[in-house]
């Protein structure tokens, strides 16, 4: 089992993909830890570093970094929303 990860808007462009499937890495138990793991993939992924303005959703609900992640989840990362 793995997690499905989605990227939107400027973040999607920065990392060069809109979605991927990933086996949960050892030591990754929260949305924030998943974000930190992804941020270490290389230069294009620095947009996900802690301190950057990134929002996250787990199973289509906005959550904080402390939210747990389990296999089968749909996790999304995106910039602050600008609709309306």
């Amino acid at each position, binding site marked *: 089992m793995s997690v499905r990860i*989605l990227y*939107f*808007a*400027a973040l999607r462009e920065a990392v060069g993909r809109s979605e991927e499937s990933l086996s949960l890495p050892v030591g990754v138990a929260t949305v924030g830890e998943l974000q930190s793991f992804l941020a270490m993939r290389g230069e294009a992924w620095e947009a996900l570093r802690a301190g950057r*303005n990134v929002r996250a*959703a787990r199973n*289509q*609900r*906005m959550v904080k970094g402390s939210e747990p992640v389990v296999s089968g989840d749909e996790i*999304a990362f*995106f*910039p*602050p*929303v*600008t*609709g*309306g």
Partner: protein
Amino acid sequence: MSVSVQQADFDVGAEIAALSRGYPEIGAVASFVGLVRNANDGAGISAMSLEHYPGMTEKALEEIVEEARSRWSLNTVRVIHRFGRLEPGDNIVFVGVGSAHRGEAFAACEFIMDYLKTRAPFWKREETPDGARWVDARECDDGAAARWDEIEIRR
């Protein structure tokens, strides 16, 4: 069907009329229409593209409507948000509320817009003479949404 996320335009007059049809107890309908402006942050805007998160968008809007219904006594609520490429003057968003009295209709309409601005997963990309750019979120939008945590319900 109180929430729609769609590419197509909507008919503001028809939406407003539908809010009170069949509800003789409604004494007030308040509505808001958001439009594409021809300028933003000092640049001319020739068009904008709205991206969203299909699935989550509908859920987020439905939750906002539920939250509004829990705060005020509302008979009808309608939210429509468009996505895709839009040009200046085009409709972006419609929020309409029908209630017995104007205080609740006005308040709920503004509340839904304020929450939508910070919670519904939409992102705007503007086309300017210098190229396309993603719109940055405004801090005042967070403030506008947060003030509802403190505001007393006025009738």
